[in-house]
């Protein structure tokens, strides 16, 4: 078992989230998107990433948070998934942080809503909690 792992961190509605740095393909600034009517709500649109068409999923919507204020442009965290690359839209990108397994704790039972499924747990950093996002689960969308 590896005692520490690298997490790529980002901000969502004031919360600090992290995904395993290994799964992150690249981080890019806001891209023009093509919206997809009738798609699940979390799908913000499609991005042309050097010839590869990447679905952008707004993590705020996905986690049941309130929408981003008008005029604020999200960043793209492009992660690898079983089905090719998927872009996660986040408010702001943070550092890559090495975290210690010892500081990990499962989410409290009081955590409800979509976050319950998607937040695997929290790393207790100095003065801050870093929530570990279940990336594979986050890109799974149920179409209505």
């Amino acid at each position, binding site marked *: 078992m590896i005692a520490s792992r690298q997490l790529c961190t980002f901000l969502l509605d004031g919360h600090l989230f992290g995904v395993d740095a290994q799964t992150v393909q690249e981080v890019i600034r806001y891209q023009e998107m*093509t919206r997809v009517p*009738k798609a699940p709500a979390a799908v913000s649109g*499609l991005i042309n990433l*050097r010839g590869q*068409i990447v*679905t952008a999923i707004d993590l705020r919507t996905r986690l049941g948070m309130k929408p981003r204020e008008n005029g604020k442009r999200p960043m793209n965290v492009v992660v690898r*998934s079983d089905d090719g690359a998927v872009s996660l839209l986040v408010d702001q990108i943070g550092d890559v942080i090495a975290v210690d397994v010892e500081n990990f704790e499962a989410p409290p039972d009081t955590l409800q809503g979509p976050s319950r499924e998607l937040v695997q747990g929290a790393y207790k950093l100095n003065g801050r909690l870093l929530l570990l996002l279940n990336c594979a689960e986050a890109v799974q969308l149920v*179409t209505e």
Partner: protein
Amino acid sequence: MSFDDAELMKEFVVESQEHLADVENQLLTLESQGDSMDVGLVNKVFRAVHSIKGAAGFMGLETLGGLAHRAEEVLNKLRTNELRPTSLVINTLLRAADQLKALLDQIETSNQMDVTPHLVALQSIMAGEEAATTTAVAIEPTSENTKFEIGISSEALREFLIESFDNLEQAERDLLALERQPGADDLLNSVFRSIHTIKGSAGFLGYLKAEKLTHAAESVLGSIRSGNFPFDESVSERMFTTIDAVRRILHSIESEGHEGADVTGELATQMEEFLQEKLSETPTKVPKRGRSTRKSASSKKAPVAAVTSSKEPTESVEARRAQPDPEVIVTPVKPTPVQANSPKIETAQAPEAAPKAPTPTRISPAPAGSASGSTESSASDSTIRVDVALLDKLMTRVGELVLARNQILQFNSTIDDSALHSAMQRLNLITTELQEGVMKTRMQPIGSVWSKFPRLVRDLATMCEKDVRIEMEGKETELDKTIIEAIKDPLTHLVRNTVDHGIERPEVRAQNGKPTEGCLILRAYHEGGQVNIEICDDGAGLNLGRIKAKAVEKGLMTLEQVARLADRDVGNLIFLPGFSTAEKVSNVSGRGVGMDVVKTNIEKIGGTVDLQSKPGLGTTIKIKIPLTLAIIPALIITSDSDRYAIPQVNLMELVRLEGEESRTSIEWIQGAPVYRLRGRLLPLVYLRNELGIPRDNSAKSEIVNIVVLRADDRQFGLVVDNINDSEEIVVKPLSKQLKNVSVYSGTTIMGDGRVALILDVMGLAQSAHVVTGTKERAVSDSNDRATTNNSNMQTLLVLGVGPSRRFALPIAQVTRLEKLAINKVERADHQEVVQYRGEILPLIRLSDTLGVEPANHPEGLMDVVVYSEDGRSVGLVVDQIVDIVETELINTRPAQRAGLTQSAVINGHVTDLLDLPAVIRMVDPSFFQSTLNV
């Protein structure tokens, strides 16, 4: 020996399947050749089965090996002329080949499968015919060899060479790896297998030296495998020497047709001696370390020392790695053993010099003209196998490059710089060529699909008790791999149908004065960026009367509708769902499903099917398909400033309503909008509604754009904000998150780099409930389409008569357009005629017949439209041939006069449409009489 290396097993399965793929057709050819069979072909089949047998035995696949062995025995009798390729023999072999395939498909459990019936069948063939021919004396090995050398076809030889070069290379690689980890059994096995395969093929083809050499090497390897002595440097040196020698022999075979004299049997003898030495020295000691073996071996005298004296084995390995060119590693063959080590390293350091220095043992026939190193380009170098996924990726990148180029091209036009322009020109050209090149890599000849048809036809024909011969033209016509996959089933179905329904039984054919053997022709060719595939038979043709009756009986059409149909359209009725005229349902075809599926499948990939049938003469089914699926033509439309692509395949026509019309011509039936398209109600679907985009209430609503689409033989109008343009788009799949959204079928990247969604017309129709109606409804709708279609898009020949009158007739009725000299017109039987192609061509002056003032004709030539029916022709004299237009007939008005059907506006002129048969009848009432009697 049990073998569980999955990778190797997979390789074996793929290889064996490839071997078997050809066997089928080769066997069929043998059967057709009968007594005059091509021995080379038997050899090919034998070789394929033999390789399967060898590898199967090696991997412990007893059932597979056993069956292959038995088949091989029968083949052996065939090639020694002890058996004849009777249909019984071929049948049994074919079935055995099928069983081999089945075993390969389930390789894991193959040993548990029961193949006894096949073994018995093969055995009985052996026994049955053996009794009769047992007197045939076994042919002496030497004479056999010469015989086979003659019998080998150049193709078989080429195959053998490619395979053997590959095997040598593989063995070499494995040996190198083996030197690093001498205990690796799988590597040893792999080397053994490679050498064994070469041995088998070489022996079979009568290349004795190669066989002897590989046999000796194989013995050594076999001995190591059974643990008699360990693998060490001395062994690998020996192996490399052998491999090099074999390679030289192969080169010699390739270039000169024989094994050459330079490699002598000495090497094999040395190998045998080496083996004996190894065997005699090791059993007592069984040294674990290669080092001790080497020491003891090097203490020995003579030939062995040549190899084992190499003090730096690693160095020699390095040398080989650095310079695998077999041409330069020739010294070990020399009888002077002392030099073995040093020259090798030298050549590795200076490979350029090597070919120039004539070595006495050098046997490569490479002429001095070919530069150093290039002698290696043999047959095996010309092809490689590439993963399709890699090609797809490459394709994506190239697509991206094309887009980038397009963007740069746009800038280019705004900047005035000649250097930039010329650089752009080159970029442009290179990109285009690159794109074409990458596209080509995905192409496969259609023959790969066709290759299974001879067998299919043969089996079906036997089952239906018919004689059918299959002919193929244009096997090499290339198509995208995905298309090849997509047309496999439809084609199979059509071929089945043709054999079952199209071609008559021999006795019926004989009665009708046709040869008893029916002929099925498959033809493929490129035409206008598309591929045409034709399936022709010389059978009975479609019984149009019965089809019409059936259509009425099944309630697919009314009597009236049927009566209006042209023969050609009647034929195409069989593509309607639930249509079958077969009197009895056979287990081959005729269940009434199929032809519509064929049509749907072909249309799915953007193709069309057309059927033409001549009673008593046969049927031709013509399929037109695009070259590739990756790029399709599409119509780009806009909805709420987003662009969407609609595949052109689904597109029927575009309608634009402006001003007053836009408000009044859309009517509502209880909330469902409809538009009267040429008198027929066209259900309308608003794209904005379907996509959940709010209605646009701005001033633009003055204009209504309707895209008339077809989904599952239903038409509907899609109302969109704007119709942009037609474009070729590169189709990319939807991501997993969007797979379930039914209204899209894919995505694409537009010229400006933005993503656009491709609308799934079928999905759209379903979500808008356009295609939820009952089947009857769908069918009657499609019939409407069929009939209206006849009057919709037509290719017309526009004629000018007199100063201003225009007439038009469907181009399909025109046989030829001619310019004939006016002074050649003669008179016969009160009619103007000309001598035309050795016949008398009656002329009809359109102006006279229709009572139009003719133009003042300049003397000289006149334009004549030749119309033929049933071998008889008539010439229509007109003043001017104006144009050929493909148009849709709008604003038509039924005509009042005889000889005309209707009036329409074509290219801005009011044009009368000719009823050509009526016109001819007005002049020559007897013209059609002979046709009517048929």
